[in-house]
């Protein structure tokens, strides 16, 4: 049985894999397990974006580029500088957090409140990072682009789960994904910083009157969000290879989950991740891998058109959108 990984590392089941399988029971089991894995991957990708955009209303369109950058940095620390894997991961996450802070501090802080400008500027930052990385030879990143620049899985090997082979990396993703969701919802509901972050999103003026420094909160959100993008990268990138295109896809996935779910609602984000994850998995099984992107973008557009507030959005958000 061969498992072929697509380069984006998100939908990792091959068509080849399907064509060799006959039993329907196995089929549905596989859809169930890999659909869950994919959904958690979506949730993980979107966590950072949801925290930054959904909670503190800074649209960080550089999310995808930070994701790819952390992959590159980890690769570079391991292969060029010879760091141990764990240390390389920690270093790159720290770099991601600092980068998120700097993006806000240098660029976004001057555009605060002008949503369109924030989007265009952060998207420009994203293009700078991704296209800069695509160029060969920049800052010692020689020969980075190509199908073979991959990160090692944390633990090699597969396990037979109810008749379906799942590798350990995916099990780790499920574990960390669920853990992070729980941690973050505890963080935003029960710590002072987390509550301030949500306060900024709900009513910035009132929050500032109560002594919440809105710029400081946005900086914190950007740092944590970028580190989360990095965390998703080091977990998910071992399933595929590191290319600049991944960055654009990740941005779209993150936008999709965040918007479909309804802003600032963790439950909505998780639900959206599962909706997209299973929609894509099932469409791949039924129509083939080519239709996966069509279904993804189609789902986003349809949900935005017919339920603009998202699946679990609130009335206030509806007014802002329509």
């Amino acid at each position: 049985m061969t498992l072929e990984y697509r380069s984006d590392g998100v939908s990792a089941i091959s068509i080849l894999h399907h064509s060799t399988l006959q039993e329907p029971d196995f089929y549905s089991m596989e859809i169930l397990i890999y659909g869950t894995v994919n959904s958690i991957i979506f949730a993980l990708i979107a966590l950072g974006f949801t925290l930054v955009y959904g909670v503190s209303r800074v649209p960080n369109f550089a999310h995808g580029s930070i994701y790819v950058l952390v992959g590159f940095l980890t690769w570079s620390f391991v292969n060029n500088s010879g760091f141990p894997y764990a240390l390389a991961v920690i270093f790159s996450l720290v770099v991601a957090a600092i980068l998120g802070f700097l993006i806000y501090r240098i660029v976004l802080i001057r555009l605060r409140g002008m949503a369109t400008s924030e989007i265009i500027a952060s998207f420009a930052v994203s293009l700078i990072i991704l296209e800069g990385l695509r160029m060969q030879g920049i800052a010692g990143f020689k020969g980075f682009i190509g199908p073979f620049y991959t990160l090692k899985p944390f633990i090699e090997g597969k396990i037979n789960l109810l008749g379906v082979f799942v590798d350990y990396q995916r099990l780790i993703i499920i574990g960390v994904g669920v853990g992070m969701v729980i941690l973050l919802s505890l963080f935003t509901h029960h710590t002072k910083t987390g509550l301030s972050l949500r306060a900024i999103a709900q009513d910035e003026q009132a929050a500032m009157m109560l002594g919440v420094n809105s710029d400081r909160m946005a900086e914190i959100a950007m740092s944590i969000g970028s580190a989360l993008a990095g965390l998703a990268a080091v977990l998910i990138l071992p399933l595929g290879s590191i290319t600049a295109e991944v960055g654009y896809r990740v941005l779209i996935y993150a936008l999709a989950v965040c918007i479909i779910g309804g802003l600032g609602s963790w439950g909505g984000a998780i639900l959206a991740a599962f909706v997209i994850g299973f929609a894509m998995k099932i469409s791949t099984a039924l129509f083939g891998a080519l239709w996966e992107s069509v279904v993804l973008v189609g789902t986003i557009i349809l949900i935005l058109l017919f339920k603009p507030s998202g699946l679990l959005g609130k009335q206030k958000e509806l007014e802002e959108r329509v």
Partner: protein
Amino acid sequence: MVAKTRRKKRLERSIKVRCEGLYALSSWSEIAYLMAPRVLLILGLLVIPFYVDMYWQRVLCSAGIYALLALSFDFLAAYVGLVCLGGALFIGIGGYIAGLLNHYFHLSPFVTIPIATIVGAAISTLVLIPCLRLRGIYFAIVSFMLPLFAVYIIIALNVFGGTEGISALDTFPSISLELYLILAAVLAALFAIRRLVNEDMGIILRGVKDNDQAVRASGISITAYKIRAVFMAALLGCFGGAYLGHLYGWLGISLFAMDFSILPIAATVMGGMGSLVGPVLGAFILTPMSEALRGFGQLRVVLYCLILIAFMVYKPEGIMNILQRKYHQFEKWEEV
């Protein structure tokens, strides 16, 4: 903190004040004052092609396409309040219609381009109608995804040449024809839209942007006006797309590429949002610049993003508004 002892004072030039009224045409100097910037722009665009070689004439052609896109972006964003990040959708639809008509029915470019412009704009408008309910960044995000969606559908269905595209379309008979066609289109579109935004319809559109509830309360359907505005913006984009297809004699999914969405935005921000002339000027500065940097590969994308950010952060009003201010006003330092 040190108190400032002097500040800059700006005053309107007297000739500008005189030109605003009924007596604008009372002397040659006033007529010249009013006409000079416009004539300079038109003459500049018409004369420059004589002084550059064939390669740069081609670059000017694509600069014209970006200028049309920038114009349509600026019109939608600054006058209707719809931030459309999907300029590539217009280019793609226009280009595909013209190319397919030419490939399957062997129509000449002079027939396909008008058809593609009008039909393409109608199709783009139909696609965007459901999104018009959305506001602000939600419209931006959906319009950003639509070109991607079109690409995925073309790849998945493998229609219209699939990922390969269709080559060997008819091209224009001569370079001067293709050059002056696009320059004439840019100038016509520019002056038409400038006039439009000052008519009654422009006032309603600005009303839709600033306070759509007030416009509705006046008994005017905002959707009808948004649809008309989108159709007009799509006309410009689809013309650009159809022209582009015949310029290179080729159509393919890269007509939906992100370049067509990003560069016009950079040009608009650089030239000055809402000035209409600014985006055109920005496109004619940015496109040759990115062409000159072609040797550096992806560095040019990095470069024009840096320019974009620099303008957004440090000069948010853009080149054109600064120039206009210098033309109409004088500045002097005065003691406080």
